[in-house]
């Protein structure tokens, strides 16, 4: 390596003033060597595909014939696809259900768990266990639980109290809630751990002060704990919304978008455009829909942060 010669230059007084910076920036070749993995990997697998998705969205591409420029045709095709509206509605429905079912649970659990005296580790280990189960295993396991006959696991529990059997995944009205419950089960533990850490940062003096003012336990939660966690709550909310907008594995493996497209989400539609057997190879449409989703998420996130900018900073 050329760096063998470095000690001489490093020791000389000329470079003392600017120090480290000058010393290493002289060795342009080794700097470049350190940048090379970054440039190659990000160039090929991040920057180039991002640019390419814009190009593809205005092209007709299908691996067979050479790509042709089609302007905004792909966007028009996607927008006029009856499945487009359906998939958007399904994704919003999924996001709302996940919000109603999945958002309050980790918060309530964390608040309760933070007050435990004994077995603290046991509580969080139990809550985190579903997160450890690989998502594919979790989905396939729940698919067995959701089995529609009277002998399905959930239906046999319901049968004991004289209810059911319910076609969990076979019924268009039940399918989406069933998917949401599975997704919530798989994810709530991670959020609980985040909230538990956030709860530790609430200064105990605030509770002391609230007690001086005669606050009850519920009032302390309402006026001290929750306001103090506002920042983290806003972050987890937007992260959950962004994640639910890109939900794929759960509906894909549980219902394959059925029954009657009741669980076809936007990402499932993108997959069908690009790789599905019936539509396959419509890469232009897939890219167009991806970009529309990304643009929506970008605008949504920006508006969200703009709307909540005052709430999350003051405390």
């Amino acid at each position, binding site marked *: *390596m050329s*760096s*063998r010669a*470095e*000690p001489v230059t*490093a*020791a000389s007084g000329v470079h003392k003033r600017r120090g*480290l910076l000058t010393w*290493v*920036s002289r060795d*342009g070749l080794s700097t470049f060597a*350190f*940048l090379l*993995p*970054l440039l190659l*990997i*990000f160039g*090929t*697998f991040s920057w*180039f*595909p*991002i640019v*390419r*998705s814009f190009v593809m969205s205005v092209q007709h591409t299908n691996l067979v014939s050479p790509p042709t420029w089609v302007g905004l045709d792909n966007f028009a095709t996607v927008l006029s696809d009856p499945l487009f509206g359906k998939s958007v509605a399904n994704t919003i429905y999924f996001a709302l259900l996940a919000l109603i079912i999945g958002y309050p649970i980790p918060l309530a*659990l964390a608040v*309760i*768990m*933070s*007050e*435990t*005296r004994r077995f603290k580790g*046991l509580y969080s*280990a*139990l*809550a985190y266990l*579903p997160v*450890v*189960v690989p*998502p*594919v*295993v979790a989905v*396939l*396991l*729940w*698919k067995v*639980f959701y*089995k529609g006959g009277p*002998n399905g696991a959930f239906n046999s*529990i319901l049968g004991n109290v004289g209810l059911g059997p319910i076609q969990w995944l076979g019924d268009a009205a039940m399918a989406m809630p069933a998917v949401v419950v599975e997704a919530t089960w798989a994810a709530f533990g991670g959020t609980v751990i985040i909230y538990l850490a956030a709860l530790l940062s609430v200064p*105990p003096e605030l509770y002391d002060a609230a007690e001086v003012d005669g606050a009850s*336990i519920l009032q302390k939660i309402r006026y001290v704990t929750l306001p103090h966690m506002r920042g983290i709550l806003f972050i987890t909310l937007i992260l959950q919304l*962004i994640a639910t907008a890109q939900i794929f594995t759960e509906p894909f*493996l549980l219902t394959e978008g059925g029954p009657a497209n009741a669980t076809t989400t936007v990402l499932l539609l*993108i997959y069908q455009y*690009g790789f599905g057997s019936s539509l396959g190879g419509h*890469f232009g449409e*897939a890219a167009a829909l*991806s970009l529309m989703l*990304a643009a929506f*998420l970008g605008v949504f996130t920006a508006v969200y942060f703009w709307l909540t900018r005052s709430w999350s900073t003051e405390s």
Partner: protein
Amino acid sequence: MKLQLPFRHSRKSLPTAQRGIISLADWHKRRIRWSVQSLHAVTLIGLLIVGLGPILWLAKAAVTPTQDTLRQPMALWPNGFNLDLLVQTFTKVHIERFFMNTVWIAIGSWLCQITVATSAGYALSVLRPRGSRILYGMILGTMFVPSVVLLVPLYLTVLDLPLVNIKLVDTFWAVWLPAGASAFNVVIIKRFFDNLPREIFEAAQVDGAGPFRLFWSIVLPMSRPIVGVVSVFAVIATWKDYLWPKLVLPSLAVQPLSVRLPDLERGIQLDLFLASLAVATLFPIALFLMFQRMFLSGGALSGAIKG
């Protein structure tokens, strides 16, 4: 301010250092203590059912014949034990092959992520060549692009690598290399390097270390905690990934567990399928129990500065 002393007689008194929502005074009211404790009991039972229940069910189903699982899925104790099912997951399903594929994918992805993140973090934080701010901005920018945008163009890229025209599909490289393009890793590693004390670098420089030596013998050993965190994230992410490996690893010889398991569902008996799911879950749960401790011991850094 007057300190409130903990009541001497009470075994159940709060640790005074860290108090929570419930005060000592609250805790000494019988009604409150009773309701809080019953709330905790209900929560614990609920967590046992919800968190542990499905996993225990899976463990039971892994040794229960199909007929029993079908007829009485919620029976607490299986009628017939069939430990042979666990053996069959190896002899018939060959779960170990797909497990090893997952391990190879995890190792390669980890290596690629660490190589890119540490070298890039070193270049951007310590070497800082001209234009590194722009480069860092371009990396940050990719964090705001949702992964869904990359799906199709990235697939076409690994199908036919630009300039060199190599097809990566059905090789581990198709997962390894894109895994390296993680802006998140580069950002947290760079920020960690930013906080390393410059005096050590200058001392090393006086002692005659070049940029490579500085990287390998000083910066990397000091970064063990953050490299550990990134490593754990990398392994977990590989273990969870489904859509991407499904797209780029279609042939059986290279499929990881997550891609293989859904296809198994149609091909084999329910009991063997559930046994396979159980075996696939064992390893991550073991990892979880191990790395719980690793996270607790992150204080390797302080020693380096003194030495």
